[in-house]
């Protein structure tokens, strides 16, 4: 969307006038770019919440909420302007297609003061903003008609996100009031002296974490029953509050979801509780009752991608690490031939371009902690592969007999752990400078708890202290004994601190000593006794040495899954669905589908191989398809 630059400049000025009001109005857990709060803080809130629950032995649940077409559905009269007439209110309500039962709640919201009034924005400024949004229009080049709208934030305009932030803040405040009436349990954290400085002892209200239109609602409880009851009740209420502001929530898979961390009972036992859960098309779902949608179901997930990060129920970042390694690999493969591994280009050029997949891979590294050996090994191998390609060329990086240690000696560069530590330390300086007090208190509370983020940060500080010449130059104490001295140093001299971190990173130019894979972790072939270090090697061995074929592959024909009646567009993607994504569909195939005859099997394999080759040449995964998955016409067979 192209708008006049002069108009944008004027709107930028209006935004500048509105900024002080939004800064004082927003909640401490809103991280939409205001008050220097970014996605890293949103991620830390959830990390801190999980750490708090684990430390105090509490059950928890997170409701991730996705508002469909949030910016386009915003009703401007909730944010500013005069009251609308009854006829207009009825007309707008009908046009939004809401259930008639919601009208009473909608009417109540209309009677409340607007978001600008709540935030104390002066009347004149309100009118100026109103004048900028009287009637907005957009068109497409080549058309002589326009679309005139009176709702929605203007896309691509400096006022777009700030208007939305005002509305979402007023909604979240209502949600907090509603939740405080139901949830009795809150995080009680903080003390006079913590590792992050002096913080007042307080009850931290982190009922929600917000990043622009991504919302996560956090629930704590002493027992799993308490959490589930609260969750069920709150989910309905939240949907209604959003509905009363004429914002619809999408309950489709991967949009709105519930993540559970319950103590006491096993996962299977909990999900079998018919009071709360029932089996749906997307697996287990939480039963929710609300005025807006009646009886509805919210999918229960084991992981959810929130603000660019995979949040999982257990304390591990392995899923997120693996996802970033895979995406870096995709980027790396496409660039390896033409740029990074092209020996006709000078080395310094190749090294510069190798930073693209590396930073892609380490983009979330500052919030990774408690990394398992598997994650470190996977990160390190991918990282070294990229550097080897850059130094040696794409044809030669695998042919050399260098060990990692020799390679680092020959071509010194920072190792992956130093990169991660450096990023974490930069985040620490951001936390000390900009993090809101509740977040600091939440993080400081878990200090001393063995698996907490703050422990990892101060370990990194210890690494910095040991590896640099701090003691001689600045007479700094050991961070383990006096963290407060370090805090004041980081706050007062942020640039010096960053330079020291960079220097410390550059010193770490040796290969990481990885623990050897234990012999107990491997698998032994039951036919010939050959020892395989993991399941992938084992399957490869069984195929090569004993001619075993994958039982699922021997039953697959075409690209359509008969278990869930969906078309996956190619056979490779269907195989990935059956083998990795949907064990139920995989089991359905194994139980019901007959084996293909040899000729058909060979044909199908040839088709798959051709697709794989084409995709590999494009730098894609074997299970990539340009077109999305579509639902087929017909009943879904019973899989139980």
């Amino acid at each position, binding site marked *: 969307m192209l*708008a006049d630059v002069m108009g944008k400049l004027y709107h930028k000025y209006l935004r500048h*006038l509105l900024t002080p009001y939004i800064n004082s109005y927003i909640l401490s857990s809103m991280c939409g770019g205001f008050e220097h709060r970014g996605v890293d803080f949103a991620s830390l809130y959830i990390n801190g919440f999980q750490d708090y629950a684990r430390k105090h032995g509490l059950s928890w649940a997170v409701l991730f909420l996705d508002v469909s077409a949030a910016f386009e559905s915003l009703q401007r009269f909730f944010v500013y302007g005069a009251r609308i007439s009854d006829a207009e209110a009825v007309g707008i309500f009908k046009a939004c297609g809401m259930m008639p039962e919601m009208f009473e709640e909608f009417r109540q919201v209309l009677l409340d003061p607007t978001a600008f009034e709540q935030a104390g924005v002066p*009347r004149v400024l309100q009118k100026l903003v109103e*004048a*900028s949004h009287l009637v907005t229009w957009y068109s497409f080049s080549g058309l002589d008609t326009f679309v005139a709208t009176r709702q929605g934030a203007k896309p691509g305009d400096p006022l777009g996100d700030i208007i939305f932030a005002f509305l979402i803040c007023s909604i979240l405040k209502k949600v907090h009031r509603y939740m405080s009436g139901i949830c009795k349990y809150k995080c009680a954290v903080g003390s006079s002296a913590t590792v992050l400085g002096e913080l007042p002892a307080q009850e931290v209200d982190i009922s929600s974490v917000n990043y622009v239109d991504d919302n996560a609602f956090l629930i704590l409880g002493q027992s799993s029953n308490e959490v589930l009851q609260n969750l069920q009740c709150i989910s309905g209420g939240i949907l209604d509050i959003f509905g009363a502001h004429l914002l619809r929530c999408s309950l489709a898979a991967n949009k709105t979801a519930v993540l559970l961390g319950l103590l006491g009972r096993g996962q299977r036992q909990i999900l079998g509780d018919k009071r709360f859960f029932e089996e749906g098309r997307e697996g287990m779902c939480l039963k929710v009752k609300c005025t807006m949608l009646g009886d509805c179901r919210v999918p229960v997930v084991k992981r959810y991608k929130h603000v660019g990060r995979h949040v999982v129920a257990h304390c591990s970042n392995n899923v997120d690490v693996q996802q970033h390694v895979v995406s870096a690999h995709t980027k790396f493969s496409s660039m390896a031939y033409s740029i990074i591994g092209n020996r006709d280009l000078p080395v310094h050029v190749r090294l510069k371009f190798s930073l693209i997949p590396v930073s892609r891979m380490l983009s979330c590294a500052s919030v990774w902690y408690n990394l398992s050996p598997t994650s470190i090994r996977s990160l390190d191998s991918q990282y070294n592969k990229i550097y080897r390609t850059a130094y040696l060329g794409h044809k030669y990086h695998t042919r050399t007999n260098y060990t990692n240690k020799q390679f680092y000696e020959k071509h010194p560069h920072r190792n992956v752990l130093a990169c991660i530590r450096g990023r974490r330390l930069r985040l620490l300086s951001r936390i000390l400078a900009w993090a809101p007090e509740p977040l600091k208190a939440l993080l400081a509370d878990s200090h001393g708890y063995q698996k907490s983020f703050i422990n990892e940060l101060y370990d990194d500080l210890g690494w910095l202290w040991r590896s640099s010449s701090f003691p001689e130059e600045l007479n700094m104490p050991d961070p383990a004994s006096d963290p407060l001295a370090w805090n004041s140093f980081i706050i007062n001299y942020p640039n010096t601190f960053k330079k020291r971190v960079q220097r410390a990173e550059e010193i770490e130019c040796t290969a990481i000593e990885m623990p050897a894979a234990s012999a107990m972790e491997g698998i032994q072939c039951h036919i010939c006794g050959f020892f395989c270090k993991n399941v992938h090697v084992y399957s490869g061995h069984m195929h090569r040495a004993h001619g075993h074929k994958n039982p699922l592959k021997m039953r697959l024909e075409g690209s359509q899954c008969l278990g869930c009646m969906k078309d996956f567009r190619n056979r490779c993607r269907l195989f990935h669905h059956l083998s990795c994504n949907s064990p139920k569909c995989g089991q359905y195939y194994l139980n019901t589908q007959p084996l293909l005859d040899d000729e058909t099997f060979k044909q199908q394999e040839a088709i798959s191989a051709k697709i794989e080759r084409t995709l590999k040449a494009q730098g894609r995964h074997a299970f990539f398809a340009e077109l999305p998955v579509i639902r087929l016409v017909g009943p879904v067979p019973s899989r139980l």
Partner: protein
Amino acid sequence: MCSPPNNLLSKKNKFISDTTRHAAKARKQAAEHVRSLKRVHPGVWDVSSPLYWYISNLKQHNSYVKKCVIEDKRAWVCAQSEQIVDSDRIHNSRMVYKSMRVLERKPPQQVVCMEDEHGTLVVKPIQVRRCFQVKIAKLTNGSIVGVAQLIQIVTSVSVEVTNDDRLEVLDLVPTEPFMEALCASSAAFVASGEDGKPSELFKYYPKQMCKIIYPIIVQIMTNFREPLAWLGGVSHELLKGSLPS
């Protein structure tokens, strides 16, 4: 006010050098010739055929063009890498990203110059981004109207303003130096709107542009009404351009 020099818009792809362009042209002619001969003499062409020479000629053209394109690409990568950063700031990946984006998306660029009414240059010509591609367009709730209807709708509505508001708004009117600073903070290399004024002009010549924009903003703020053009925008898919020589 802003006009792109016409001679800069002829090249389509900035990666391709003139040598390659000529080679590609020659290859195209050879291919067309072979095609026309094939139409006249259908059938299988073997070594003994008199037309064999044309095919081998076309193959030579093909390999030469391919070689030229690879060389051009290599030269472009080297040129881009020189612009990134020195080796001591090698870890600034943002710069690399920026360069890579240039490499991947080939953003067409052009030179604009500001002229006064007598046709003399007011500021030096500067390099700006010319366009971007719009892939997805999302329709929202709204009514589809023609130009006349749109003007009628916009003129029919207004904000209720009292005399107090007109007085109070004077406190909010920005100062001229502040507007200059705001102009200078504009982003470079972003697409301009329907008015054709690129943001680079505001960024690099804030003083001159502030003289134009400041009276307009004061008038808008005191009248509580914005121009129609500022209330919306147009989604575009513009033609690709080339780097100025």
